[in-house]
């Protein structure tokens, strides 16, 4: 199903569907209805891909993670309890898939890209584009800051990066983050605290270097 409009609009429309409609889709998909499962993918694909991108840092890995997430969801659809939040359920699957990919990446000796980058393979801002306004200077400034942030995240250890992405970017509660990371809330708070300090220091350093005369 190819559409000319950006995929986000389709997702928004699907996401705004009534919860009962989503439950009906889930019930049909559990019986093996292929079309119903495809509709479920349409409803959740943007959120899944965005989360995967934030955790993994690049589109190729995000695409692989999204595919694996949907395959796992199909495989374990029978264990999905009626009445459960499907968005939250597939979100947890996505986070686990990303963590597995990071672990596999780490076991394989880091990045597969040339240059020996870290496990967090970030994309430069020039490789993709946002829907920006017409101001080129402002766009360039934003791209620069995004690059700084991505490099700062890439510099973090995996657990700290995962904790701060889930807490600060995905907006999950500390307890939920702890559950997804299979650790305690106190540990998550410690990781978040350390990650925020490192991000602050990194950003300050970069901004100081780029400041004229600094």
């Amino acid at each position, binding site marked *: 199903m190819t559409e000319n409009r950006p995929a986000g609009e389709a997702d928004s429309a699907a996401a705004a569907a009534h919860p009962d409609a989503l439950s009906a889709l889930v019930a049909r998909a559990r019986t093996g209805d292929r079309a119903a*499962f495809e509709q479920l993918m349409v409803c959740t694909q943007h959120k899944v891909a965005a989360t995967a991108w934030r955790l993994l840092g690049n589109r190729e890995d995000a695409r692989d993670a999204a595919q694996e997430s949907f395959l796992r969801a199909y495989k374990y659809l029978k264990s999905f309890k009626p009445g459960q939040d499907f968005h939250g359920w597939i979100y947890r699957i996505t986070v686990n898939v990303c963590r597995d990919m990071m672990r596999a990446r780490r076991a394989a000796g880091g990045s597969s890209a040339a240059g020996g980058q870290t496990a967090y393979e970030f994309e430069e801002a020039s490789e993709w584009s946002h829907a920006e306004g017409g101001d080129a200077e402002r766009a360039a400034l934003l791209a620069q800051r995004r690059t700084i942030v991505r490099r700062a995240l890439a510099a973090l250890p995996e657990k700290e990066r995962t904790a701060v992405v889930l807490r600060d970017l995905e907006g999950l509660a500390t307890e939920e983050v702890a559950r997804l990371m299979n650790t305690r809330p106190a540990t998550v708070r410690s990781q978040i605290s350390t990650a925020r300090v490192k991000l602050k220091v990194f950003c300050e350093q970069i901004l100081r270097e780029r400041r004229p005369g600094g």
Partner: protein
Amino acid sequence: MDCARNEKLLALHAGGDLPEAQARSLAAHLRSCEGCRRVASDFAAGRELLALHEPPEFDAAFFDRIRRNVLREIDGGAPPPPAFARLTALLFGHHALALAACAAFLLVAAVALVPYLRGGRAPAGDAPPQLAAVGVEARQENGPAPGITPPPARADETEAKTPAPVVASLPHRRHLGASDRRAPRAKSAARRAAPIEAASNVTAETAETAEIAEAHASNAASTCQEAAAVSEVAGLAAPAERNMLRIELQTGDPNVRIIWLTPQEPEHLPR
């Protein structure tokens, strides 16, 4: 509040992750501490920068490819019919190796235990009561008090169930003198010999039991010789054959009695 240690607290405070009491305390400190306020401001700026970490706009082709790959995987990996899938999983699944190992272990254990069960069970089942009877008789024969007789209950029981075993021996002539000299103990020996119940396991599979039985039989035989000699002297019994030694052994089974005829010579007596 120590400003040097406040950095991590301020990091948590920036995201609203401090407990309420601690957050109030830190907020009060910030009102009076310029340095900590600056740090808190830096953390807030860092969070704003972090919010720029937005994913790119994924176009429709990006998601179409994802869905196409997923559906292809679902269709291509369609499971076989349930029965076949279960059979395949059973034969070639990761449980198959565990099942095969268990089966092999059980087979080896069964093979190893069969000789033990065969060799130990039947004789062990039969021997104890017989050996117990022999043992009782042996103790009685070798006990401190001469003329030990079986316990009255046992004797009564034996007499009630079976006729009293006739244990007689045909002593050699030259033993008569010795028996005569042992006359004062004849009666006790006769009492000891008469109700003797001896058991022997003469099966080839229990050599040890046979040896014990032979030892007791030899005791019984020698005792029988004395008793027979005494009875002959007393005129109580007259063995028909003077050249053969007849030994009768009553087993634990009242219906089974072993009769042993052997030449009279001592060297022919079972050792």
